Every structure is written in structure tokens, then in C-alpha cells.
């Protein structure tokens, strides 16, 4: 543990330093122009100070993003339209709904594919094709179609989210359900086990490690899906909406705060899955 602290601190420091330097480089032209218009000459320290405290910088400095996040997470009431918690919750609820639907769909498809060769041959190509279409192109159409039959709000976002998250689940679960070796299947045959018994007693337990890897990928994909779903709908709430409105008004600090909020959300969700995974693996004596 102690051995890993130093590299982690070193890399983080390095990233922050790079970030601060790029803030200076990218924001300096605006600072210099302003100084020229006012017939001022900027010393280096004045220039640095200015580039790190602009209202609409090209690249906000880390502490500006940090302060904005602090303000919008802790200082605002969670019901306020300016609270990141409020927007985060909107995105989170769509993410979780999409993740659950995607996981369910993924597992069902995997079960069908493993047990029926015709399904394997006929459905698998469509599953792969579905992931080759850019979601940015597809998302507006999903929203339009669903809203025309009366579904708005959380539902279309959850569907887009599901669309992205079911794929890693299918791929992982197919591999997992097929992971029992020939000996294990033969053994089951010698006991005249039914297909269903083989599934419950052997295939499902064996697929658990694969499932957790897929769940983590699926969770991250779900969040991306929910955010993408918020962009074309002109949504007024959610982290995606926050990014969109930030870009309309040049509120770069707001965009970056929303970005970080999304990243923290994704990391926490994947972290929760990791905790459950550690518990299940311990119970099942799975060594990783």
C-alpha cells in the first residue's frame, strides 16, 4: 500500500501542474488583449493571476472548477435548478433505470444465445451491428419516436442508456455461461442433469466473475447514455443539460464542473459494484 501512494501523488501532482500551465497558455491571449486595450503592461505574476481567475476562461484552472463544484453541491439547496446534486440526481435516475433494463436485457439475450444455436446465429449479428451505429446519431431519433408515442422525461434517456449498457453484459455473459469446460459438462451428463439444472448449478455460478466485469463496463456506458440522451432533447435538467447550457453561454467553468460531477458519479457507481463484487467473490471463494 505504502509503495503505491508515492506514484499516485506524483501522477496527480503532474496532471494538476500540466492543467495549470495550460490554463496560463490558453487564457493568456484574452488577458493580454484586455491589458493592451487598457494600455497596461502585465508582469508575469499579474498575467498568471489573471489567467487563473477569468469569468469565462478557455480552460478554467482546477481551483475555479473546485470552487464552482463546492458552491453548486454544498451551498445550493438540492432542489434548486442551480444545484449539481439536483442535476446529478436527474442523470443518476436515468442511468440506474437504463442500467437495470440493460442488465436484464443483456442476461436474457445471453441465455437465449447460449441455449439456442439459431438465436446465436440470427441475433448476434444484430447485437454487434447495433453497437456500430454512433449513439449521437441514434439518440435524437429514439427521443423523437418515443415522445411521439407519449414517452418523455426519464424513459427515453433510460432507453438510450440501456442501448449502450446491454452490449457488454451480453458479450460477458455469453462468455461466462460458456466458460464451463468439457469435463464439467460431461460430468453433468453422467448425472443426467437437465439443461436447466446445468444452467442453475454450473453455468450461472461460473459466469459470476464475467458478470461483474460486464456490470462495471455497463454502468459506465449507462451514464454516458443518460448524458447523451440529455443533449438532443433540449433537456433543462441533468448533467448533460448542464454541459449543453454551459456551452450555449460560454460557461466553461460550469461545463467542467458537470464533467467532473459525471466522472465522480461514474467512479462511485463502479466503486459500489466493486464492493458488491468483493463480497460475492469472498462468499463464492473466487480468487482473482
Amino acid at each position, binding site marked *: 500500500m505504502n509503495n503505491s501512494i508515492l506514484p499516485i501523488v506524483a501522477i496527480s501532482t503532474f496532471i494538476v501542474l500540466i492543467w495549470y500551465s495550460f490554463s496560463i497558455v490558453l487564457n493568456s491571449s484574452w488577458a493580454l488583449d484586455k491589458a493592451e486595450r487598457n494600455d497596461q503592461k502585465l508582469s508575469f505574476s499579474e498575467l498568471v493571476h489573471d489567467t487563473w481567475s477569468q469569468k469565462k476562461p478557455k480552460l478554467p484552472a482546477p481551483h475555479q472548477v473546485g470552487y464552482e463544484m463546492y458552491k453548486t453541491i454544498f451551498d445550493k439547496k438540492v432542489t434548486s435548478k442551480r444545484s449539481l446534486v439536483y442535476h446529478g440526481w436527474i442523470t443518476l435516475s436515468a442511468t440506474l433505470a437504463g442500467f437495470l433494463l440493460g442488465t436484464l436485457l443483456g442476461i436474457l439475450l445471453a441465455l437465449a444465445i447460449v441455449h439456442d444455436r439459431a438465436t446465436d446465429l440470427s441475433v448476434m449479428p444484430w447485437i454487434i451491428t447495433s453497437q456500430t451505429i454512433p449513439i449521437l446519431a441514434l439518440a435524437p431519433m429514439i427521443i423523437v419516436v418515443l415522445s411521439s408515442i407519449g414517452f418523455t422525461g426519464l424513459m427515453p434517456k433510460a432507453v438510450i442508456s440501456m442501448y449502450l449498457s446491454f452490449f457488454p453484459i451480453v458479450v460477458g455473459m455469453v462468455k461466462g455461461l460458456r466458460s464451463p469446460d468439457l*469435463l*464439467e459438462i*460431461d*460430468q*453433468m*451428463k*453422467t*448425472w*443426467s*442433469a437437465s439443461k436447466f*439444472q446445468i444452467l442453475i*448449478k*454450473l453455468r450461472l*455460478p461460473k459466469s459470476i466473475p464475467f458478470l461483474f466485469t460486464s456490470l462495471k463496463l455497463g454502468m459506465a456506458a449507462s451514464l454516458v447514455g443518460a448524458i447523451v440522451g440529455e443533449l438532443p432533447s433540449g433537456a433543462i435538467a441533468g448533467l448533460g443539460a448542464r454541459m449543453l447550457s454551459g456551452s450555449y453561454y460560454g460557461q466553461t467553468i460550469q461545463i467542467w464542473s458537470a464533467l467532473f460531477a459525471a466522472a465522480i458519479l461514474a467512479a462511485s457507481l463502479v466503486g459500489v459494484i466493486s464492493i458488491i463484487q468483493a463480497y460475492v467473490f469472498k*462468499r*463464492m*471463494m*473466487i480468487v482473482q
Partner: protein
Amino acid sequence: MTDETVISAKSLDLTFQTNDGPVHALKDVNLNIIKGEFVSFIGPSGCGKTTFLRVMADLDQPTDGTITINGVSPKAARESRAYGYVFQSAGLYPWRTIGKNIRLPLEIMGISKSEQKERVEKVLKLVELEDFEKKFPWQLSGGMQQRASIARALAFDADILLMDEPFGALDEIVRDYLNEQLLKLWHSTEKTICFVTHSIPEAVYLSTKIVVMSPRPGRIIDIIESDLPDKRPLEIRDTKEFIDIAQRVREGLRAGHSYE
């Protein structure tokens, strides 16, 4: 011992179609196994000994000839749970305790919980693993794991035990011990055992009948009825009778091995 035929194979043929052309795994195999016999199948790899065992177990199907187990087809025998099969590796599920592993076939066969408990206790005693019911497979040595796997094959009380090189991956000291134990178990349960091995001393020590096989095509070269006494201490391997039988097995293996 009654002279009741348990396994009967008549002009059995099996050809596998592979990408490199057909492989003749079994050719004109004829064999009768009487109830209560301990039959070893010995031969170099590719001689069809495992394939023959798998045909008995309905894991592979013959392309020609007939085979009956307890007078019915292997499929019917498998479905009526006539045999227990022990594979080369123990194949215990790491997420189940030893006791739960032994319960697995019983659960599949729909045997009641109370009877499951009874049977698990009984077979654990047979393989001398009474204290390990609650342990997980990784907490056991390779030899103990294989004993647990034998216990699992015994749990549903089939009359026939098919064993495919069950001790092949174990060191010689453990193997000697397990051979002794297996003989004891065979005496106390009076099961019919078919045992695949590539060790001559193991085959001679265990068997009442030794089937010597040879590859390309897989066939039976010699069937040796052993006249060794029923009670066999490990030292029996130094007696003349034992060495004579081993010699005959070796000659059979050599004769069948054409080095073309």
C-alpha cells in the same frame, strides 16, 4: 459372486471424423464384465481405453456393434443412474464445500434433503473424509480432492463405478495409499469397477481382470484373469504371482505396439 453379466460389448466399433480424416478409436471390441469384477483397462495413449469407458457412460456413441449395461443401452443406463463416473481431475466446484459438492448429484436427482445428509455422511466415511464436510476444495490436497470426487460418484449408490485415470495426476506415495483404499472400498461395497490406467503395477494390484489395449486402431490385445488373492497388502507386488501377471501385461503391450 454370481455370474451376472453387467457390461457386454459385441464387435464394438467407433470412428471419429476429424479434420485430419477418420480416427479409428475402437475396432471390434468384445468384452464381458461380470458383476463385482474389478476391471482395469491399460494401454498407451490413443488405444481407446478412455473412449471405451466413455461409450459405457454414453458420453461417446459407437458407430457400430452393440453394448449393453445391466442389459439396457448406455443411454438408458445413464438415465437410470446406473453408474458413477470419476474423471481424471476431481472437478469439484470451488464455491461449494466438500459436503455440498457431494450433494450436487443428489440435488440433481431430486433426492430428499434428509436422505442427502445421510448419504453424504456415509460416503465421507467410506473415503475417510468425515472431518472435511465443511471445508472448501482448495483446503484439501490433490489426493483428498480425488477421494472427495470418488465419494461424490458413490453418493447415489450406483452399482457400477467407471474411473478414468483417477490417480493419474497424483504422486506415487499418495497413489499407493489411494489404491489400497480403493480396494478396501471395493470389498466393502461390492461394486463393479472399470478402471482406466497406464500404470502396470496399479492395474495388476487392483484388478480381477486386466484388459490390455493397443492403438491405431484401438483394440483389445489380451484379457488377463488375475488369480491374486482378494486380500492384497501392498507387499504383494514383490511376489512371483504378481510379477508374472505384470510380465504378461508388459508383453501384451509390447506386442500390440507396432512402431511404424
